[in-house]
């Protein structure tokens, strides 16, 4: 009997502690909610009618709380080859939330999961798990992810659940076609491929080669769009080679590029293999231009400085842009977190949080349906420029074309949808 006493006491003690913990956290959140309501009432000089309406909302829809707090869930690549994107996203979200909650927009933002991005590992399967774990916390909107292949299955599920999904870097054109609650704040693949072809034409390159990752939606989307638009622009595609996202050896493909006499190589892929491809191309004797999409952003060029001469990529924004929103974002971010993770992904997650606040302002409430209404057709100005959401939930925006100088990314020009240089 004595021996059994110990586990029993332990279990009782643990249960008691657990129950106590639950109770206190519930109390805390209730207290936090009431203080938030009180403070917002004080600062905004709210009338009594507003107060009662918010209490009514409280009673009917516990998720919406006082109607002024937007509950957002975020997921992104925290681990894996593209972890630097997740790092940037996490920092940018923290920054945006701090700014909004200290600001006077009238809305507060709460990131579920304790303010942390849930990891999708850059993989579709893990993304669904991330999505499910976010849904358990009852958010009004979900933000993410940066990759098309990861976002596509999530978009499918979100549209079934009528959940607002604001994709941040998923440029595959099918993402927003999954449902009316799916939006994004980046341009789409065909558009990036088109701009790359247009840029090649302006530079006077005539023979293009393409190497793309066959196991990746993003890479396939850019490749198709590029080939289509290259032909329309009078550029001959002399070689199309496949690879996978896990490959490290590109020597065969790049020697074919040289053998076919191409003067331009398009490699739409993600940053982690970009130095290897550029290195392999230069090793094979290719001295033409190598170009990629926004997946190149954040590429580590250490040790490859010479190889990256004559390389370009299209991007959502350039940190050297002089627009006030960009300058503000870049200087604040650099001060807080340095420049290593200052990439387009960070900028897009940052904009996403602001877009949701804007959507809440437009419709006057923070539940999912109001946010969707507020988001549809909205015009927004942020780090990614000024753009309007079209009927699919895609923005129409210009692309920044970057190049490299001594291994450092340098802004070259901005190409607008009409094809004119700015």
């Amino acid at each position, binding site marked *: 009997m004595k021996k059994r006493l110990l586990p029993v006491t332990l279990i009782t003690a643990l249960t008691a502690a657990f129950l106590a913990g639950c109770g206190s956290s519930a109390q805390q959140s209730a207290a936090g909610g009431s203080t938030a309501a009180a403070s917002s009432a004080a600062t905004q000089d709210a009338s009594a009618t507003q107060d009662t309406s918010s209490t009514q909302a409280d009673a009917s829809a516990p998720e919406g709380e006082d109607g002024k707090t937007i509950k957002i869930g975020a997921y992104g690549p925290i*681990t*894996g*080859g593209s*972890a*630097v994107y997740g790092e940037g996203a996490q920092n940018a979200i923290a920054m945006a939330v701090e700014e909004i909650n200290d600001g006077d927009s009238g809305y507060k933002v709460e990131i579920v999961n304790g303010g942390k991005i849930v990891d999708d590992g850059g993989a579709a399967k893990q993304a669904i798990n991330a999505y499910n774990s976010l849904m358990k916390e009852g958010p009004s909107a979900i933000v993410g992810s940066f990759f098309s292949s990861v976002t596509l299955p999530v978009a499918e599920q979100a549209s079934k659940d009528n959940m607002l999904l604001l994709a941040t870097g998923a440029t595959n054109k099918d993402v927003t076609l999954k449902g009316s609650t799916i939006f994004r704040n980046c341009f789409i693949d065909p558009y990036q491929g088109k701009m790359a072809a247009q840029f090649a034409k302006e530079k006077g390159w005539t023979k293009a080669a393409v190497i793309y990752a*066959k196991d990746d939606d993003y890479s396939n989307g850019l490749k198709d769009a590029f080939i289509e638009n290259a032909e329309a622009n009078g550029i001959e595609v002399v070689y199309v*080679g*496949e*690879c*996978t996202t*896990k490959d*490290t*050896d590109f*020597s*065969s*493909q790049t*020697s*074919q590029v*040289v*053998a076919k006499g191409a003067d331009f190589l398009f490699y739409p892929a993600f940053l*982690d293999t970009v*130095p*290897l491809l550029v*290195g392999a191309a230069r*090793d*094979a*004797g290719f001295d033409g231009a190598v170009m990629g999409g926004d997946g190149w952003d954040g590429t*580590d*060029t*250490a*040790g*490859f400085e010479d190889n990256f001469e004559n390389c370009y990529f299209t991007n959502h924004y350039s940190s050297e842009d002089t627009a006030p929103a960009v300058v503000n974002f870049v200087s604040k971010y650099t001060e807080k977190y340095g420049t290593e993770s200052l990439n387009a992904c960070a900028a897009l997650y940052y904009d996403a949080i602001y877009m949701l606040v804007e959507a809440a302002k437009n419709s006057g409430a923070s539940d999912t349906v109001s946010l969707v209404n507020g988001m549809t057709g909205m015009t927004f100005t942020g780090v990614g420029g000024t753009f309007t959401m079209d009927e699919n939930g895609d923005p129409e925006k210009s692309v920044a074309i970057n190049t490299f100088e001594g291994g450092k990314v340098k802004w070259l020009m901005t190409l607008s949808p009409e094809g004119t240089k700015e």
Partner: protein
Amino acid sequence: MTFSLFFQSLINGLNQGAIYALIALGYTMVYGIIRMINFAHGDFIMIGAYTLFYTIPMMIHAGMPAWISVFLAVVICAAVGVLVEVIAYKPVRRAGSMSALITALAMSLFLENLAMVLFGAKPHNVQKIFDLPSVNVLGVALPLNVILTIGIGVVMMACLQIFIKSTKIGKAMRAVPQDRDASILAGINVNKVITMTFAIGSALAAVAALMYCAKYPRVTNDMGSMMGLKAFIAAVLGGIGVIPGAMLGGILVGLIEIYVKLFAPGWYEAITYGILIVILLVKPSGILGKNVGEKV
């Protein structure tokens, strides 16, 4: 196919093959001596590569050539190899081959995740190891470091062959798999020989890491798993347990991959793995393997 394309691919294939061969040697030596597939072997390359990543800047800072780092990598890899053997493999050696295999898989995952915790999930670029120009041979641009890499591989394989054939410990290494009990009677310290095998196999992995980083200067925590798998295929292809077989298998897998990629880049892995299956169907013991049944 033009001659220049063929020639360039030959060099690329030999380079890739030499790396596979060196890794395959590690698999084959361990298998030959204790009949165990050390799946963590691929991750020893990762450890070697991270050692290079951290020590090359130090070497350059001290005014020494970057490749000196490989000696440090050899020492660290050999130490890790011996440590893994003593801590994880030795205690389960008598528990049967399944336990040993599972332990090896666990060790592989452990090392990969440990590296992720220690060095982060982000890939790192390794600084240039050999700063050599390209030469133009028969109208083909050939980077000299590729030629040098192949050379290093060949020298390492030759040295290993001499070591196994003519030194005392090398003879002991050949004796143990033939008859373990008889070798104990002949005065061979079996445990010491096994530890030595792990040390040499891991040291070769460090050299493979150098060759890998000279061609593909990037380290990630999971780089070893795919390389290890390919090298394992090479070892089986050549005849696992047979040292010249690992060399032949490695070179073959490298050449096949590069040439298949030239024409059907999307197919190269399907074809590489397909070859393994065909070889196993036709000659289960591998190209140079002797068809002797397991001793009961």
